[in-house]
């Protein structure tokens, strides 16, 4: 058992060592998101504001190719009304076709259309952004370690580079970005968008709203998942108790007791 304890000590030491090591990198800011936790839900108005920020700011470079406009009206999301969703979709020009003559044509968007991408393909997006592809944002929150906290932190993490750090043209300093160098400029400034609900559009507010929106976009099933999960686990616990009692009864006929 001495060796056992020794190895345990090694593991403990290692994990402490590991924590120390990661402390050199700055951890993302911890935000108390409404959608965290077992019963977490999205803040509806924050989602709607977040869509506005995405649409007016992010969407000029970042695509969201796996989302459809209809998703904006579905339960558990921003829950825009049917008319609003139709109006949002109609605001986009969608390439469709070929028609009977074999020609491609453009038409106003419909709720069933996927989000229109700002660039025709990855190469075009990369070329237009100084050689850095602005990643598709459909699942971005799930694709980054730290998730929503990390995205939010990067959005508010721009600062002047510390002394001695030389940045190339078109590269910006961000204290939360891995490697601290980011090709996306700081696009948020106070009052950049005018929120329909009158909320003051501070950098922090916009960063939180758009991160909430992106979290929903990455996990549109989150609210259903949480609600179903609670029911499933309660059901399983009840069933477990019943089976446990049956088991006790059946096994009472024999020894050993279980």
């Amino acid at each position, binding site marked *: 058992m001495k060796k056992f304890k020794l190895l345990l000590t090694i*593991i403990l030491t290692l994990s402490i060592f590991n924590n120390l090591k990661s402390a050199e990198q700055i951890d993302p800011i911890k935000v108390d998101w409404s959608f965290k936790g077992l019963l977490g839900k999205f803040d509806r108005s924050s989602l709607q504001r977040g869509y506005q920020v995405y649409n007016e700011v992010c969407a000029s470079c970042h695509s969201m190719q*796996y989302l459809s406009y209809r998703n904006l009206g579905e339960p558990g999301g921003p829950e825009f009304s049917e008319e609003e969703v139709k109006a949002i979709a109609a605001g986009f020009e969608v390439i469709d076709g070929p028609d009977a003559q074999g020609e491609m044509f453009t038409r106003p968007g419909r709720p069933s259309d996927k989000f229109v991408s700002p660039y025709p393909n990855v190469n075009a997006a990369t070329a237009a952004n100084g050689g850095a592809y602005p990643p598709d944002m459909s699942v971005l929150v799930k694709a980054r370690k730290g*998730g929503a906290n990390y995205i939010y932190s990067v959005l508010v993490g721009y600062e002047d580079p510390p002394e001695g750090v030389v940045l190339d043209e078109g590269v910006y300093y961000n204290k939360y970005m891995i490697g601290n160098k980011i090709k996306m400029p700081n696009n948020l400034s106070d009052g950049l968008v005018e929120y329909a609900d009158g909320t003051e559009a501070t950098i922090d507010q916009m960063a939180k709203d758009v991160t909430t929106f992106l979290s929903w976009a990455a996990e*549109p099933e989150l609210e259903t998942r949480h609600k179903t999960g609670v029911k499933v686990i309660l059901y*399983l616990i009840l069933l477990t108790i019943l*089976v446990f009692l049956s088991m006790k009864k059946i096994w009472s006929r024999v020894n050993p007791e279980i």
Partner: protein
Amino acid sequence: MSEHEYVPKSKAGKWFNDRLPLLSLASHLTDYPTPKNLNYWWTFGGILTFCLLTQIITGIVLAMHYVAHADLAFASVEHIMRDVNYGWLIRYIHSNGASMFFLAVYIHIFRSLFYGSYKSPREIIWIIGLMIYLLMMAAAFMGYVLPWGQMSFWGATVITNLFSAIPLVGDSITTWLWGAYSVDNPTLTRFFSLHYLIPFLILGLVVLHIWALHIPGNNNPVGIDIKKPSKDTVPFHPYITIKDAFALLLFMIIFAGFVFFAPNVLGHSDNYIQANPMVTPAHIVPEWYLLPFYAILRSVPDKLGGVILMFSAIFILFVLPWLDTSKVRSAVFRPIYRQFFWILVVDVLVLGYVGAMPAEGIYLVLARVGTIYYFLHFIVILPVVGYFEKTEPVPLSISEPVLTGSADYSMAKKDNEKI
């Protein structure tokens, strides 16, 4: 094992059973005499059957919506997550199900190691079990490639590249495996095909595993043979079925916890980035259940050496029944082996931990020590301990009082005549 021949009561039943004895089989399975002292570590066989069936059923549904093509696979997974009714639930059950499957199989294997279930006369059960485990690893690895994320692609690249370490023909074999000159669309389509095939091979082996089990019957915590079936055993149904059901439900609660509240904690965030052959992730790590072997692989500076060692780590288990020289099965009566067992558990955990870390500095040292110890356990410690260990007195039978043994077996003290 059944002591009496089963005869169906109805005429039709008898007619059918004479031609295909399915009813006899059902009777054998329900009456199968099972040691009455099995503890909860013995419930993982049933849990594993559940895991396999869950993977097969969810997998079949996923395959209805998934598209095995390098350009479309990632998008088709998002389609499942967003547009298929309860597609997110089915996919999360399948992806977390793989982890739960491995969790259960590791407990099952270590249970066998602790109670000596691999020893005579159960060597074939053990070997079939290891074949299932190997196929599980192959299925899990190929399944992880299918979403065609960054870790899928780079994991596949790293693992398939291992074969290039084979002298002379290595590169040709790798190209043959890929069906291309790198991991590409042909690799994805064949992995999908094999990923669909393997679970059914596993299912077949499970039948053999259970068949082989039903010849000598279950081992048990005391590790001794059944002396008096009427006193030492209970019929499988309802005693074991209800106990398995209870354990399975507890397992399902944990399973559901992952699926509904932390569906992505066991995965890697990079796998939500579509595969890109031009961008290598900072750290390429396999899924958690393969980490100990990954640590062994990387502990050797030579590629071929690492590959050989990694495969040896699994294949050495095949000869385990003949490496263990002790006549006593259960570690309960083996004071020295018992301690080495726990050291092995810690060793494998340490290997798993360093497998997730970069192969440098202290991690590399630990990986090497862990690897050496792993082989030392099987090649040296097991045979030697078996010879020199002074085992504790083993009870005469499962139901008979243990006069000098471990306190754990006080439950065998009072023999109830009801059965």
